[in-house]
């Protein structure tokens, strides 16, 4: 009986383990409650290096970084107010260059909704920052096409500066946030907390 309980716990942990980063955000400053008070939806990015994938002699694509994208709609706006996190897309990168994509479902957010992109703490070495920056810009454009807004990119404090630097590759530059908002301005906030806000504006 005890073994059966332990097995069940292991299976449960494995199921939940696929989204450890999200679970890590269930409490603290980026908890679901904290996010729900500010955003209509949140897209989570989880970069992870795929071990041994496309790694072979003469391979030009390995190693591959898989940026897993899941999203969660604020329960007050979700159908039947159900709180669920859905797998949206996996983007594959090699040394910061996009090499593949797999879509798992539709990004089901409605026109006008605004939200945030939340990046987990897994990439402590920042070796995946270029891939994350690319994924963020790709999402910003995609979400704008849906007539929605990305208000903020929420990241660990150690990642703010490298990410802002990496977004410069895509013409996003730091600004002081004092310019009045305008309909044609593409702006996003990169922050790790209330007192650490970095205003990024797109300057083509």
């Amino acid at each position, binding site marked *: 009986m005890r073994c059966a309980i332990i097995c069940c716990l292991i299976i449960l942990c494995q199921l939940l383990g696929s989204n450890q980063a999200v679970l890590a955000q269930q409490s603290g400053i980026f908890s679901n409650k*904290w996010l729900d*008070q*500010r955003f*209509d939806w949140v897209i989570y990015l989880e970069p992870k290096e795929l071990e041994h994938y496309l790694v072979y002699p003469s391979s030009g694509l390995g190693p591959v970084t898989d940026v897993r994208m899941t999203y969660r709609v604020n329960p*007050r*706006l979700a159908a039947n107010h159900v709180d669920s996190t859905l797998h949206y897309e996996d983007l594959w990168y090699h040394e910061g260059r996009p090499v593949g994509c797999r879509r798992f479902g539709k990004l089901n957010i*409605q026109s*006008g*909704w*605004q939200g945030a992109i939340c990046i987990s703490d897994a990439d402590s070495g920042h070796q995946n920052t270029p891939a994350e920056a690319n994924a963020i810009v790709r999402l910003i454009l995609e979400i704008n096409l849906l007539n*929605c*807004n990305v*208000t*903020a990119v929420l990241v660990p404090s150690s990642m703010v500066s490298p990410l802002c630097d990496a977004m410069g590759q895509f013409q996003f530059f730091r600004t002081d*946030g004092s310019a*009045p*908002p305008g309909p044609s301005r593409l*702006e996003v*906030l990169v*922050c790790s907390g*209330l007192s650490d*806000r970095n*205003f990024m504006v797109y300057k083509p």
Partner: protein
Amino acid sequence: MPGKLNGLLVVISLCLGTVLLTAPSADAATFNVKAFGAKGDGVTDDQVAIQNALNAASSSPGSLVIFPVGNYLHSGELTGTSIGLQGVGATLTATTGLQTLRLTGNKVSVSNLKFNTQVTNTDELTVFIDSANGFTVHNLVINGNVGIKPISSILVDNGTNGTVSGCDLFLNGSPSSAGITVVDSSTVLVSQNLVTGAGTGVEAVSSSNINCAANKTATGAGGIIGVGVTTMAVTNSLVTNLSSGAQGITLVNSTNLTVSDNRIMGNNTVNVNSEGIESVGNTNVLIKANNIQSCGILSVGDSAVQILGNSIFAAMTGVECVGDANLYVQVNQIANCQGSAIAAVGISQTLSISQNIMRDCGLTGAFMGGAAAVVFVDSPPATSIPITSNLYTGSVKNLSFFIDCTQASPPALLAGNKTNTLLPSTP
């Protein structure tokens, strides 16, 4: 035919810069006050001569009384019926504090005249359009006192189908006085007038179809007032020099109101009792595209209110609404408020707050009901509360919330609201 000939002669004489003296006539014609003995020398009392001219003209409805160049002193009220008065560089100067000119009847007019007074510290009703149909008051310059009693410089009482336009009023009035008052009248255009120094610039009371357009007021107690009016538009006007506690445009117990494209400037000191536009107890109110500075918009007990596309700067509360039914606050730009940008309390039926762009609020923490929020909503009577696509940037000082809608039922629908301050919202 003689009337037409006289009119032609007057036109010719005006072109030549000369004064034509016309004889009194029994037909609708043109009468020159100098033909009746008026001197216009600024010394002689022309009261009798002018009144004789007005009487002669009144006996022929449709006649015109001409005042050639000069300063005509008069010591009492001047009256006329169904006539017009027209000046040619003429000034009427009152030597007593009595009513200056009273016109009644059909198609009355007074134009191109300057009114002065030699009397101080008394009341003077300069032009009184009394029970007239089809009246025109145009291009007057009035320097006068409307000081002690609640009295107006130009008063239209029981008038229909008329215009008061292009008049410049430089008054010395008490807070209870007014520059132009329209009462118990219908279909009146009040446009392009300037009023300074009175308590209120323009007021309409118990009237209908009032079009108040492109006026300028620099009056202490209030700019433009409508009370008990059915269908009134206040548009393209400039309201300045408001005293502390005064309201720019005030509308009370009226129906079908449009207040649009006005510019209202309070005094530089933001006062909790001052409002750029105050609407109380009205039905069908459109407040649109106004530019308001140092004061905000207050709506109390109104029904079907649309507050759209206004620009509000440096108010205590940008838009404050209490006890309204069916309220729409949309596409406004609100900045530098001492407290909230938008506060809606006790609203019933639909309350919609959307697409407003707000910046730098909560500057002194003077929040309505103590709610430290950019948008504060406490409206349990409402059946629908969409709060969508609003934007806030700037100061977070003294602020605890972006949108604070603490009521449990009905819950507000919050979606698309954006702030780069990371301030939370409480749906």
